[in-house]
């Protein structure tokens, strides 16, 4: 690095740290405005949300000579207040791995060979044109909102085909069904401000110290200011979060359902539930014989009777958590003088009863009245940067339409057909295949009923992340007539089986909009060019749609015979954005976003106008223009002091209530055993998850040398006593087997995580050690989300025979 450049960058680095320190100490921002022009060091700074998790931290991206040269935390961002985690401050490095995909490639005679973009687009269009009903798109919570929106419109509005689903099915589908079945509408009422106001924070199967570190740091920082915040970690293994927690309650996998019921039982038995709150704001619900999204009506009396068996002692028997700790939780929820925030993420969602566990968490907050005030909130966190924005709000799930609509509702279909200017009846009423069904059908021979023959994967890596990979992904290898299209930035486990690979632009190589975990919509502009011939996913979708239009596919025309993606200049003249050379003649993202925005009002998910987002570090919807002429965001939904849509005098109003009476639903759901529990042959619980340094499948973070070197490969965390019994020490190679596969991994004892006896943990980031060859693939019956957190395994030292033991978990 040149000395002058280093000097200037060092000044910037120090200024950023000083500003962050002042912000932390005095709550003031200093030296915060971005300069519109490059500084004397030639570095131009602009804002963007971080590319990684659902927290939605904002970064400042320093660009010089068409290259990202530095990253700093955005001091103006409410989410992260100038701070970043280890991944965030290396986010610029993800663009510069040596093996970036630069050219389209088609598999010919078993090998991927370079082809032109024209040929690639034609290949895709022909596959779709010939069998449109057998085509599917598998998308992502990493799609930008415009990317998801064009894919959604192409499929449901253009092809009359609902076989589109995002990878978010794997991470937050149960959160969606939990919110919808409780409040009648998706996404949290609260926001990150709750973390600043709570007296108690309960983390349910959640490790925010490593997975959402900036949010966790926000709470720890309150302690350093002398505030008292009680942290309770309810988990199946000790993690870095446990180290900071006042209480650690270790439960037997799957028994979190019993713990939540134990709390509700005590609130009722002790008469400490909030009678006034439930009288005004709640109804009761239980499931039907066959699990369903809205179940059937119940009563308080029936609810109380169903909870009768969940005494602290019975919950201890089921969960292993001492009865006195269940009473401690019951006593906390009984108090009116404290505020309680519950956080959860994959531990609750990746669960064969994930919907029920989500319902129960909402239920104990509602029953106790710990809802509707800052700091009193049940809040699920998301793992991807736009799982909320693109999967949930744009509605790229197989059953959904934009703005909280569903394909099964005729009025909702009509709304979309009107905005899209489509003939009535274009959108089909039957939901498409959800993720697991889509891949099962793709991996089943056509003659055996496998009726998906082409999948286009965008911005995700299912060859790595799907559970039970042999069944749901690699089985494709032997099916000659199946065709896999993958838009990607680097070679992955998915591109290895791809028939057509499309090189994609990523993050600040393109315009974008994300939506984070707290309903915050965040916009950024393209800052550098993508490498080689890599192009935007949004462009790819529009280009394929236009090729279909040229081929005469009737679905690519609106009611007036025009192309369904009509992007225009200021004079209203159509710009041929399907030609790459014209794609950036106008801001295509802005026009797509403004069209999408029209569909966000029905369910009061009003996103801000694009130009308002340009000025902000994200705005939380509903964003409403008030009498002062300004656009106002909504930190706390359903609460009169914050939400413009609550009627005056109501205080709290669940205005999309399932029961149409402004009340939320408190559900009863029983504890039920896991689908696959340890037994004599497979006596150990296997749990999988993430690590601090790598984001999901490591496609990006493993290209950053600092991150790759810090965590070079996967491992198995074991309990030292179990390891000793098996003759394993740190660094030994252990064999792990489940009913679905076998893998060899180095053992890590007393590392970051500390599993109890009878359980192991394996991170999933390593594409050379695919733990998802072993995971189960069992799904929640309502959300269709798979369980990655528990299945039965056997562990033994490499070179020794599998032991015959009895279960310990």
């Amino acid at each position: 690095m040149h000395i002058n450049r280093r000097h200037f960058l060092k000044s910037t680095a120090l200024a950023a740290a000083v500003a962050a320190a002042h912000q932390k100490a005095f709550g003031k921002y200093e030296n915060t405005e971005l300069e519109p022009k490059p500084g004397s060091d030639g570095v131009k700074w602009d804002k963007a949300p971080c590319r990684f998790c659902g927290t939605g931290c904002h970064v400042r991206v320093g660009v010089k000579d068409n290259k990202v040269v530095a990253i700093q935390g955005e001091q103006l961002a409410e989410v992260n207040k100038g701070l970043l985690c280890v991944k965030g401050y290396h986010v610029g490095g993800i663009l510069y791995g040596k093996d970036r995909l630069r050219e389209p490639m088609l598999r010919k005679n078993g090998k991927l060979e370079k082809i032109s973009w024209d040929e690639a687009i034609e290949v895709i269009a022909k596959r779709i044109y010939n069998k449109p009903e057998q085509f599917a798109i598998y998308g992502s919570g990493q799609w930008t909102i415009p990317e998801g929106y064009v894919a959604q419109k192409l499929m449901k509005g253009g092809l009359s085909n609902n076989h589109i689903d995002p990878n978010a099915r794997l991470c937050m589908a149960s959160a969606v069904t939990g919110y919808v079945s409780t409040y009648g509408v998706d996404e949290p009422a609260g926001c990150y401000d709750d973390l600043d106001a709570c007296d108690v924070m309960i983390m349910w199967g959640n490790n925010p110290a490593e997975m959402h570190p900036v949010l966790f740091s926000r709470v720890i920082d309150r302690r350093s200011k002398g505030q008292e915040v009680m942290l309770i970690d309810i988990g199946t293994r000790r993690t870095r979060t446990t180290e900071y927690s006042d209480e650690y309650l270790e439960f037997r996998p799957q028994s979190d359902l019993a713990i939540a019921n134990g709390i509700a039982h005590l609130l009722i038995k002790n008469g400490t539930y909030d009678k006034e709150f439930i009288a005004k704001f709640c109804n009761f619900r239980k499931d039907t014989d066959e699990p369903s999204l809205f179940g059937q009506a119940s009563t308080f009396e029936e609810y109380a009777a169903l909870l009768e068996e969940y005494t602290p002692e019975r919950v201890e028997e089921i969960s292993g958590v001492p009865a006195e700790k269940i009473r401690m939780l019951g006593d906390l929820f009984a108090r009116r003088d404290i505020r309680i925030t519950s956080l959860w993420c994959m531990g609750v969602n990746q669960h064969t009863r994930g919907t029920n566990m989500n319902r129960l968490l909402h239920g104990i907050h509602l029953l106790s009245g710990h809802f509707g005030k800052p700091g009193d909130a049940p809040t699920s966190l998301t793992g991807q940067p736009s799982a909320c924005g693109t999967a949930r709000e744009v509605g790229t799930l197989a059953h959904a339409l934009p703005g909280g609509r569903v394909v099964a509702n005729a009025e909702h279909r009509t709304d979309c057909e009107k905005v899209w200017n489509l003939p009535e009846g274009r959108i089909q009423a039957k939901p498409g295949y959800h993720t697991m069904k889509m891949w099962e059908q793709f991996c089943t021979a056509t003659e055996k009923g496998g009726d998906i023959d082409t999948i286009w994967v965008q911005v995700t890596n299912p060859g790595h992340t799907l559970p039970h990979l042999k069944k749901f992904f690699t089985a494709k290898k032997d099916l000659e007539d199946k065709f896999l299209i993958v838009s990607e930035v680097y070679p992955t486990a998915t591109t290895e089986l791809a028939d057509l690979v499309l090189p994609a632009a990523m993050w600040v190589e393109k315009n974008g909009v994300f939506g984070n975990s707290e309903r915050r919509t965040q916009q950024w502009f393209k800052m550098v060019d993508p490498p080689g011939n890599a192009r935007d996913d949004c462009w790819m979708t529009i280009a394929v749609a236009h090729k279909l239009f040229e081929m005469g596919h009737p679905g690519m025309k609106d009611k007036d015979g025009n192309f369904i993606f009509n992007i225009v200049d200021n004079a209203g003249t159509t710009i041929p954005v399907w030609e790459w050379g014209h794609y950036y003649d106008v801001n295509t993202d802005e026009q797509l976003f403004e069209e999408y925005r029209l569909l966000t009002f029905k369910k009061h998910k009003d996103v801000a106008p694009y130009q308002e987002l340009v000025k902000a570090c994200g705005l939380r919807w509903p964003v409403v223009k008030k009498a002062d002429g300004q656009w106002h965001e909504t930190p706390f939904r359903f609460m009169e002091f914050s939400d413009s849509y609550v009627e005056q005098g109501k205080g709290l109003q669940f205005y999309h209530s399932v029961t149409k009476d402004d009340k939320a639903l408190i559900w009863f759901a029983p504890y039920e055993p896991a689908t696959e529990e340890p037994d004599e042959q497979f006596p150990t619980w296997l749990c999988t998850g993430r690590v601090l340094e790598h984001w999901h499948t490591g496609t990006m973070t493993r290209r950053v040398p600092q991150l790759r070197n810090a965590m070079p490969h996967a491992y198995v965390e074991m309990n030292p006593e179990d390891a000793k019994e098996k003759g394993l020490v740190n660094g030994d190679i252990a064999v792990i087997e489940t009913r679905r596969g076998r893998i060899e991994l180095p053992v890590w004892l007393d590392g970051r995580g500390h599993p109890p006896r009878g359980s192991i943990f394996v991170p999933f980031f390593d594409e050379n050690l695919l733990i998802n060859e072993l995971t189960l693939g069992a799904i929640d019956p309502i959300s269709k989300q798979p369980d990655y957190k528990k299945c039965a395994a056997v562990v033994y030292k490499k070179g020794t025979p599998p032991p015959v033991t009895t279960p310990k978990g």
Partner: protein
Amino acid sequence: MSQKRPWHTELSSLVVTLCDDGTLAAQTVREIATHAAITVEEAAGNYLPITIEVADARPIHQWLESLPGVQYVDVVFCSTEVPHEESTSPLTS
């Protein structure tokens, strides 16, 4: 396990949250300032801004966290200069 190769960072800046004990905090600041790779700025309350240059930042970060006068360490800035080791595909590494 996690540090087989160096965690090389050209330039990063951090905020160190110091403890409430003024004497211990001052002693900690002095100790941090002696580190050759660290430049220390004036603390704002309990928060000490620092930069780390051309160093294996990971062990330094962990060293900072281990100091008795340190409560927490946050990172706010990082250059993205490619370190000495070339970036390669993890598929082939």
